[in-house]
Every structure is written in C-alpha cells, then in structure tokens.
C-alpha cells in the first residue's frame, strides 16, 4: 500500500468504528460520560465544591483512559466474535494501520464526552493558551498510553467477557486510586509513593498545574512530562511486540 492508501485505510477504519456508531447507537455516547461525570459529582459534592477543578481534570483523564478500555473490548470482539480481524488480515491492510485506525476511532467517539469537560473547564478556570496546549498535549499522550495498554491486554484474552473483568481493575488502578480526582496531599504520606507508580498521576499533576491548582516548578513539570512520555513509549513498544497479525 502507498502512503496515501494507508492514510485512507486508517481514516476509513476510524470513521467506521468512531463515527458510524454515533449515528446508529447514540445512547452509547452517554455511557462514555457516565463514570467520569459521576466521579466529578461525588468529588465536588463531598468537598463542598472545593475539588470541582480536580474533578474536571480527573474527568478528562478518565475519559481518555477509558478509550483504552473500549479499544480493548472492541479489538477482542472484532477478532473473536465477528472474525472481522481475519477479514482484514486477508487484505492489503497492515497491522499498525488497523490498530491506529481503531485507536483513532475510539478517540473520535470520546470527543463529545471530552467536550463536556472542556466546557466545564472553560467556565471554571482561567483559559490561557498555555493551559489549552497542556490539556491537548497531556490528553494526547494519555490516549497513546491507554490505547497501547488496551491493545496489549486485548492480545491476552480471547473472550470479551474476560476483558471486562480486567478493564475495570485497570481503570480502578489508573484513575480511581491514584490522585487523579483529588490532590496527592490527601493521601497519607506513608502511602504517597504508591501514587507515583501510576503514569496517570503525572498526567493529573500537569492538568492541575494548567488549571492553576498547584504551582509546578519547571523542573517538576519536565519530570512529569518525561515520565508520562516514557511510560507511553514503553507501552507502545510492548504493544508493537505483542501484536499478532498471523496466528502461530
């Protein structure tokens, strides 16, 4: 395939799995918003409104993180139940195009959900170019990270039901427990090191900085970006190594 054909393949796959379902299954769009919004709701109510912005930052991270979960279930479903992956294997489409097309489709599908949080952010925090760029950059990297994770997990499970069990554990470990929805200072000092194990902690730090919730010295900011990018690259490499286009 030429570059132009590759791009066409990728965009059509993204359209097929990202845009068409919005038309035929619009209710699913609401389900994407359900957990991020309910966490935001609880955090805000329980803190008497103090943690509203933390909840918005957390909602953004969780929405993009759930892309990985959707990718994982879609890829398992398309491979095992529909045999669609085998249809595509027996065609000129290459594996990275297939995966990237699906990852992009999940991003497209989450845009309405993200828009809700971006509007909430614009209403409740000072909007600056720097903050906007930080949000886009952080969410972009979290997208790469969660897609790679979702894809890698999808290669381990043949059955979609198994992946459901696992994906809720993953989202618990990456978005509920780490300080994504609340400040890290709420965690008792002895357990705080645990939070630093999750890459999403760094994404939340950067967003919290962009929202003006904490001051981030340049050196800390660079570390946060560095860890986030390194974790994503590592996961993408693992995903690339795990990719199995032809069964052994």
């Amino acid at each position, binding site marked *: 395939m030429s570059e132009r054909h590759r791009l066409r393949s990728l965009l059509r796959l993204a359209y097929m799995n990202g845009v068409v379902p919005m038309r035929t299954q619009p209710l699913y769009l609401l389900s994407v918003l359900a957990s991020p919004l309910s966490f935001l709701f609880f955090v805000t109510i329980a803190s008497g409104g103090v943690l509203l912005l933390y909840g918005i930052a957390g909602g953004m991270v969780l929405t993009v993180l759930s892309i990985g979960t959707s990718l994982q279930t879609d890829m398992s479903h398309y491979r095992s139940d529909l045999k669609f992956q*085998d249809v595509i294997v027996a065609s000129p489409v290459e594996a990275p195009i297939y995966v990237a097309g699906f990852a992009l489709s999940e991003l497209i599908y989450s845009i309405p959900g993200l828009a809700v949080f971006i509007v909430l952010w614009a209403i409740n925090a000072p909007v600056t170019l720097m903050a906007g760029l930080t949000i886009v950059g952080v969410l972009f990297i979290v997208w790469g990270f969660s897609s790679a994770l979702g894809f890698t997990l999808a290669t381990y499970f043949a059955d979609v039901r198994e992946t459901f069990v696992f994906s809720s554990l993953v989202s618990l470990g990456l978005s509920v427990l780490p300080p994504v929805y609340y400040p890290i200072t709420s965690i008792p000092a002895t357990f705080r090191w645990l939070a630093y194990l999750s890459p999403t902690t760094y994404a939340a730090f950067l967003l919290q900085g962009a929202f003006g919730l904490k001051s981030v010295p340049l050196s800390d900011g660079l570390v946060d970006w560095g860890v986030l990018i390194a974790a994503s690259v590592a996961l993408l490499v693992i995903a690339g190594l795990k990719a199995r286009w032809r069964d052994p």
Partner: protein
Amino acid sequence: MPLAVEARALSKTYTHSGKSTVALANVDLAIPTGRVYGLIGRNGAGKTTFVRIGATQLAPTSGTISVLGHDVMTETREVRTHIAAVPQESRPLYFLNVDELVYLYLTIRGMDPRDARRRTNAILDELGLASVRKSLVNHLSGGMRRRAMVAMVLASDAEVLFLDEPTTGLDPLARREVWAAIRRAIGDGRTVLLTTHYLDEAEALSSRLALLEGGQVRLEGSPAEIRDRVRQPYRIVVSGVLGRADLEPYGTVSSVEGGYLVFAKESPARELAQLALSKGAKVSLGPVTLEDIFLQVVGRAIDSDDAGEAEA
C-alpha cells in the same frame, strides 16, 4: 500461468498446554485459477486450517503454500493484495448498513472512493441486495447477512477468494442465493476456494474437489474423475423380495429406508438390476453420488460427528 493456490507437504499441528492436534498432514494441493475449487470434509477434517494458512491468517508448522506464485510466509505482503476472505462463522459489523458494509470494506482495502462506490452499487444490484442497502445488517435474515459478506469480497479486486463454509446454518433457499453469488465471482476469471460439508453444494459449484479427512487429502479431481476413481461407482437401491443375503455377492450392502442400498462395480450392478427386475422387486440403478463416495472412502457419512470432537 501460476496456480491460484499451491500447497506442498503442508502440515499443521496445534499445540496447547502440552496437548497437540495434527490438523493437516503433508497436504499437496494444486488449485487452478478461474474456477470454484471445493474443499470437502467432516467437521475437524482440517478445512479451516488449510484456508486460514492460505489466507495468511495462520502459520503452518511445515511445508509451503503459495498464492498466485507468491509464498504466503515470505511474500505475505504481495499475497495480501490478491486475496479476500470470508472466515468461518464470521459476522458482518452489525451497526453498519449493507451499503456501508461493502463500501467501507472496499475503501479500507485502499480502493479509490469512486471505484468503491461504483462497485458497491453494482454488486448490490447483482446480488439482489439493492432493496436492503440502507437496512442495518442486524435487521437482515441469516441468508441475507451471509450474502452481504460474500458481496463484500466479490466487490473487491481480489483475484483469489477464500470462502469458509459460507452457507452453513442457512436454509436451502438462502443457500441457493449464496451459490448464485459465488457463481457470479468466477464469471470474471477469479478463483474461489470454497469449503463445505454439504456435498450437493460442492458438486453444484466446484469444477474440482478435494476430499479431506483427518488432515489428509483422500481424493482429488473433477467430480467425474472422482467417480472414476471409486471402487464401486454404481448405486442400486432394491426394495422388496430380495434379502441382504441375496444382494451381498454383488457388492457392498447397507440398509436404507424400505430396502437396501448396494454399491457395486459396473457388471455386477447390471446383473443385480436384471435379477431384481426378473424377481419383481423394485429397483433403481444409477451412478454413486458424492455422498456415497464419501461414505465409501471415509467409511462414514460426512455429517457424522466423532464423539467428543467439537467443531473448531
């Protein structure tokens, strides 16, 4: 002109947690271009394994297989530009409508959008799917869904099409609709590798057949050649007057509804028919069916299942 598919000493052994299953054992097959080639066999015979290796979805354990002269393992990229497949038990994406299913498949394969539009319209018209083009795939009958899957690969520019049991589970009418679609494919010189365990289907569509059993090719050739190669190419059904003992000298006897079925060579078949007529029994004589051949070669009917052997 290279062969559409050529397998040499192709073998596949699946290994799972220490347990291994031989699915293909030294299979040699030469599948010419431009026709429907039927791969027949019972559940577990190795049909899907063969098709998946040829369609670049599964790696063989040993041996080679090439598509249009390109080795599937070393020239995979080249092979993939020439093939399309409808995998066994594959289902179309339920949230698409029929038109999108075909059109998106073509553009995902890299086809120019204008070509894809033209070919989509043409195939939907030809296969009688035009009236349901805007219906969600989910709302179609099983036969229509299968037809939509076949339409998808037929509309592509692939020259070798792998169809793995495209009619299993369909009612007779729906099966015939899919047959018509398949016949249409070879109209323009393409090759279809069709697997089935319906022998009438294999016979109706294929110009050559291979009979697979236990991962090995047991018979291969055109339907006529296959008949010539059978030991007892005639079937005689006798009812009334004559008993099993009267029939046994003439050939292989089995009981059927209301009488006996005898497989026999030509002259004993003739003698038996005359005997039966002279005694006033009802008799019919004809060439063996593919079903009979299967029974003779494999020793049991094609739709019999081994106990405990699930469909893979």
